[in-house]
């Protein structure tokens, strides 16, 4: 198995500056063979001097970079890309203004020859807060931000100094814990887009629009170690559709517990310091069995106590 090709997904609403950023990256490819995937060429005014040859859906650029338009067929375009000789060093996918980056990430993950490293969401620093309040696209923009692991505040020069702080405060709420970079004209260095160690975790609740209307949640804040594996299994039995949290396991290690798509995953916690432990569980409205869930929490808190198994000697 060859090493997967690293991918950066560049999302964000129309006018945020995605194309400018992509153009900047193409001009500063530093000898790397980049493959840039765009919805259509119409929005990508590539410098004519860079173009070596052009077919209907692939433009070859000087220096070994290519541009592909994927239209409605991102998967087909990616599959064709992995067959190219030589394979590109990096792939950059510019999504449409209403695409949900997390969906793109999960689709790319279906292809084992690619690995998404970065989910960049570009925002127009001057108008993002206003756009996010729009009745039609507001929820889409919120979803986009929740999926990011790098938020690029483009056109920052248009924002007054006074307005910068509230903007960051707003983003800290819209995309909590996510790295932010201020810039103008999409000038983001290549290494920021493909840096290692930034495997995106599409935020578990990203696709849950208007969450309050459809879902309810229950939080669990334990005051001691928890049998994480046992709890994980119990959550599924309580109709929990999503759960995510950091918990102190019986072995004294911090673990990340996630539940999604009817599966649970427990991984070591990479965070250093002393993260707050706790777990949030989400279920479809009306489907959450809180009593059972609290029992599961309680049981996981005192796993050392021998369970009464007298009714079932086969298990003892």
């Amino acid at each position: 198995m060859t090493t997967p090709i690293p991918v950066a997904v560049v999302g964000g609403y129309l006018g945020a500056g995605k194309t400018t950023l992509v153009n900047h990256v193409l001009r500063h490819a530093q000898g790397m063979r980049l493959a840039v995937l765009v919805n259509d060429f119409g929005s990508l005014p590539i410098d004519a001097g860079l173009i070596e040859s052009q077919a209907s859906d692939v433009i070859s650029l000087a220096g070994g970079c290519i541009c592909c338009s994927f239209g409605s067929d991102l998967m087909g375009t990616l599959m064709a890309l992995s067959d190219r000789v030589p394979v590109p060093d990096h792939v950059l996918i510019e999504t449409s203004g209403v695409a949900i980056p997390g969906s793109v990430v999960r689709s790319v993950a279906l292809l084992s020859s690619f690995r998404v490293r970065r989910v960049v969401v570009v925002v127009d620093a001057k108008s993002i807060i206003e756009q996010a309040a729009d009745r039609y696209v507001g929820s889409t923009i919120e979803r986009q931000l929740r999926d990011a692991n790098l938020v690029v505040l483009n056109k920052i020069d248009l924002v007054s100094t006074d307005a910068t702080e509230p903007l960051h405060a707003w983003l800290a709420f819209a995309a909590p814990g996510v790295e932010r970079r201020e810039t103008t004209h999409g000038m983001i260095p290549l290494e920021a887009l493909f840096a290692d160690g930034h495997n995106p975790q599409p935020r578990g609740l990203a696709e849950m629009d208007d969450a309050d209307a459809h879902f309810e949640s229950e939080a669990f804040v334990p005051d001691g170690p928890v049998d994480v594996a046992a709890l994980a299994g119990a959550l599924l039995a309580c109709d929990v559709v999503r759960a995510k949290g950091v918990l102190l396991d019986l072995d004294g290690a911090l673990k990340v517990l996630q539940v999604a798509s009817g599966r649970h995953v427990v991984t070591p916690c990479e965070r250093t310091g002393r993260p707050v432990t706790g777990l949030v569980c989400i279920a479809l409205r009306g489907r959450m069995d809180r009593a059972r869930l609290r029992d599961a929490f309680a049981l996981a808190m005192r796993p050392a106590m021998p369970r009464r198994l007298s009714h079932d000697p086969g298990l003892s």
Partner: protein
Amino acid sequence: MITIYPAARILTMDERRPIASHVAVRDGRIVGVGEREALDRLGNAVIDARFAQKVVMPGFVEAHCHITEGTYWRYAYVGYFDRIDPLGRVWRGCESVDAVIARLAELDSTSKGSDGPLSAWGLDTIHYTGSGCTRVDLDRVSKERPIGALHASGHTLSVNSRALQLAGLLRTGIDHPGVPLGDDGLPTGELRGPEPMTLVGSHVGFDRNLLACDEAGLRAFGRLCVRAGVTTATDMASLLASEAVDLMRRVTGEPGFPVRILCARRLQGMPPAALVARALELRGFSTDRMRLGAIKIVVDGSIQGFTARLLPPGYFNGAPNGLWYVTREALTETFELALANDLQVHTHANGDEAIELVLDCFERALDGRTVDDHRCTIQHAQLAGDGQFRRMRALGLCVNLFANHIFHWGEEHRAVTVGPERASRMNACASALDAAVPMAIHTDAPVTPLRPLFGAWCAVNRQSAVGRILGETERIGVAQALRAITLGPAYTLRLDDEIGSIEPGKRADFAILEDDPIQVSAADLRNVRVWGTVQDGRVFPAGAAS
């Protein structure tokens, strides 16, 4: 030479002369309609009495379908309801997963020795109890050959283990909303949405490029039109690459090709300005039987796929709101440019929030002006409410409603997607007519079978597959329903000066029926038999369409 056709009855859809007994045709055009004596003025004429015992209507106009209805018949049909293939063979519906498996097993045994894929279409698992149609089910047919069964909606593909393996998806650790996992952590084999479907599709015989441009499929589509009484149809989401246009122009231009097709170029892969330029170029390639120049925009997804955009209270089962497939800016700009260039735009909007966006963008594109007779049409508009119909009227928009949904997915909509109140006002034909919005109904074939008379029955009866009436007050009369499959859709395609009714000057396009849709009971409308068609004066018996 003039030919006069006597008929048991001619339903002209011309309100000034709704009923006639004879129609006279010369060079593919209607030159007279009325009683025999009234046509004496035309002089020498040949009397062709083959329709003397038949009922003649204007040829049906299917204003929203896809020519893949013809292409799919190269695959095995595994739908729930009986369906007639292009050669007239009735394929019995598969009433259980076992019946699906049996049909595929038969196909496997008749093609023994091949290791090629087994491909099927029309699968409709909502009618089955149990867990749908998974790879475990399909593995019963074969574990060696890749198998794929496309669902009726077109949005889901069921595949077997071999197909998943070939696509690299028979593994654990997949996290994708369109790839549900089983208890073993492996995909169940039911793939939802374009990405996972594309990945596996080419391994099970569903290659996108192949489907886009298929000569045999186009001819089969023509035969299906004859069987359904359709003389003008559409290909509503085409990308119309040059080679596809050349092929379609050639095939539709063949002397025996029985139907006129209007193809709309979809907003995809190019920005609005380039699309409008391309549409103008395409318009110049129009022929008599291939009409080009219209534009199609897809705003949201489907209601049963939970990808349509809904206003509150949203999906009945609590599913998150759907997806936008176009930006508001691109939508508005396309409307502006199309209006400036006299191009017609057909906009797919299923959910009420998507409809609302279309209305807002169209209003903005008009910018206070009145643009006469643009006939831009909202396609599907399944959840349109009364206020939205009134806004359509005010903006000069037409609507093409998906009446068949009430039968095919009405129970699903009632119980799962939108709940009983909204299920009973989906595809609200009566409200559209009350608001005086020019209205058509469509089948969206291959999503539902290409049968306009069945669609008319749905609009008249609003009966779900289990016989429940969904929304009595939205039922319309038989005459209104017949108009919604003739003159109504002709109007939404800007072809009402040529087709849609039987009157002098219009094209001699007829649906020839064995029964009289006005005389049969409303409940029997769907059983009205089609003898065939006359298209541009050329006679096409369905029985000979092989």
